[in-house]
């Protein structure tokens, strides 16, 4: 084992009946790293996280955390980790302080230490004022901050975050991101997070694993991932047409030089293309159908584009997609958890 690797996953596989949620995933996470699993819902991110955090037993393969096997030495692993799950792990009828005491006691922390730590943690997320209020009355943002500090009670070396910004307003999302970043920098906590939000991955993660259909398709730093696009002769075009029709979109999609088309709003399209004639071809298509181009720009690639480029479909749920499926109907993917 490489001493700098705090997490090593080898051939992790998890099947639920006939459905393979995680398909032979292997990766390592270095100590002090923020590692992101990026992918659409149902890609197997959460399942991977649950296997790493001993909540689920892998069907095949092994994972070690701090050198301990997640199945054979699960108790040791649990001492090292904290988990912020998608479902908030807090009792609504208990106050902030009672919640933290309850979960703190599960870790055998001496009472004085625990009391001190709870005060510090509540101060850290600016909830000291509300420490004796029942959590059920908190806003979602406040609850999520509670949920995060709850995972830090045992000062974990590895913190798992499952969709930490899901359902939060932009400001709360920023707060959580900054908090995680600070934790990583000041305490050296290794962070593994899953997300389908490009911003989270882009702003937080040192390295990102793009997960789709239970497999890691690509694993690299954000910058390097983007180079997949900018390095090749691939371009991102933002096209605005005053009288955009479905006919035009279909025609553009039919072009050989076009890799993917996403409709952003009623006027503008987001197109990933390759080849030198791409610009001309698109303009020709639009003009030949009496489209009025109001703007056309060459964009910097984002992670979203990378994802689109690699997988051929969007990160967002298919339900969010404004355009019909690009590669025929997506296969049925059972959602293991209810959102």
């Amino acid at each position, binding site marked *: 084992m490489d001493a700098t690797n705090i997490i090593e996953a080898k051939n992790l596989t998890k099947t639920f009946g006939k459905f393979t949620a995680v398909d032979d995933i292997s990766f390592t996470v270095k100590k002090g790293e923020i590692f992101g699993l990026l992918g659409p819902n149902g890609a197997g991110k959460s399942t991977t996280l649950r296997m790493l*955090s*001993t*909540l*689920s*037993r892998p069907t095949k393969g092994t994972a070690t955390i701090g050198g301990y096997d997640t199945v054979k030495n699960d*108790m*040791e692993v*649990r*001492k090292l*980790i*904290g*988990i912020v*799950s*998608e*479902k*908030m*792990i*807090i*009792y*609504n*009828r*208990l106050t902030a302080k*009672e919640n933290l005491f309850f*979960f703190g006691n*599960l*870790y*055998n922390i001496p009472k004085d230490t625990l009391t001190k730590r709870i005060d510090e943690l509540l101060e850290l997320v600016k909830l000291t004022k509300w420490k004796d209020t*029942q959590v059920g009355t908190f806003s979602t943002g406040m609850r999520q901050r509670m949920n995060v500090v*709850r995972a830090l009670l*045992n000062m974990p070396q590895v913190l798992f975050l499952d969709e930490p910004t899901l359902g939060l307003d932009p400001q709360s999302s920023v707060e959580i991101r900054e908090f995680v970043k600070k934790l990583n920098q000041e305490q050296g906590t290794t962070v593994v997070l899953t997300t389908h939000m490009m911003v989270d991955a882009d702003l937080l993660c040192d390295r990102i694993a793009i997960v789709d259909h239970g497999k890691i398709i690509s694993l690299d730093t954000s910058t390097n991932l983007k180079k997949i696009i900018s390095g090749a002769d691939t371009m991102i075009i933002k096209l605005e047409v005053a009288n955009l029709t479905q006919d035009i979109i279909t025609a553009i999609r039919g072009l050989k030089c076009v890799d993917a088309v996403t409709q952003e709003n009623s006027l503008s399209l987001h197109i990933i293309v390759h080849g030198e004639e791409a610009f001309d071809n698109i303009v020709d298509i639009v003009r030949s159908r009496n489209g009025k181009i109001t703007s056309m720009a060459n964009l910097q690639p984002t992670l979203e584009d990378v994802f689109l480029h690699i997988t051929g479909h969007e990160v967002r749920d298919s339900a969010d997609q404004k355009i019909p499926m690009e590669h025929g109907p997506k296969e049925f993917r059972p959602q293991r958890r209810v959102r």
Partner: protein
Amino acid sequence: MELFRNRLGLVLLVVMPLFMMVMVGFIYPSGGVSISNMPIAVVNEDTGFSGSTIPSQTFITTLQGINNQTGMMTLTTASSLDEVKDLVQRGELSGGIVIPSNFSQSIYSGQQGTVIIVTDQSNPQISATIQSVLTSVFDEMGTMMAQQQVQSMNPALNATSALAVVKPLNVQTQGVVPGNPSYFDFVAPGIMAMTVMMSVMTGLPVAISQEKEIGTMDGMMVAPVNRLSILLGKTLAQTARGLIQGVIILALAIGIFGVTIQGSILLVFALLLLGVFSFVGLGIVITSFTKDQETAQMLMMTVMFPMMFLSGVFFPIQQMPAFMQTISSFLPLTYASSALRKVMVLGAGVPQISTELIILVAFGIVMIAIALPVFRRMMTR
């Protein structure tokens, strides 16, 4: 702590056993307690014997005398059998007593006097009660009349001896313990046993599946805590809850319904705990198979209802058909409630209930032996 913040839950914890007791206790007839003031009409068609209607008058007086003691009936008069039938059909009467025209004549001419009882067949419970009450009235009257006749035939006899001639045999009922137990005495131990055991068997799956659903279960599972201690904690909490309910039922039974405990109260609690023990395994098995709260609750209903009726909690097992008795002999609740009843009503000690104790312990051990491997597998899914 969580429970105390849930006010409704807390109230229901107390109210549920109360309802159960009150409903079962009051609805089910228990001797003279629950049936009273039944409207009964008396029709006297007796034409007398040479002008004398003494026998029918005596009959009515005796009837009124007995009724004044029990308060079971409200007596009215009606003119004919047809009127009584009509009133019963309308639901204004529960029954009627018709003294036919030849009543006095028959008696004076040395024949049996017959009285017709009209009953409301749509209500067998009341109809049976009227029959038994009237039968005892006739019995008493017959005895009295015979006694008088014997005495008149042989004036040397005093009243007691005359009675001995007429009715040489008499029955006196005596229970194992003094007092006359009511239906509450019968049903209270059963309800106690049922509530406590059910709270473990059904509360456990509901509590755990609820925690799984809101996600707090994961919080406990990622902590370095033994899975079994999580289970043990949940079990203890449910046991405590069940025992509290048991105490409430006991307090209600004693305070409101006048139930007395003949045996040791410590033994009562020991039995309740043993009952819990015998059900823990079953509770864990159900827990392992239920994924969400709804399923848990549904499963709970499915298991609870047959248990309730087949374990002799509400009705004596001996009343049931043979195949049901066989089923009930496989249910641990049967033994727990029977043992509890023996202790509470009959004042039995440990030796008298050893069979029940052994069965409960054995059932508990077998179920836990099955449950633990199942639970382990569920947790590491």
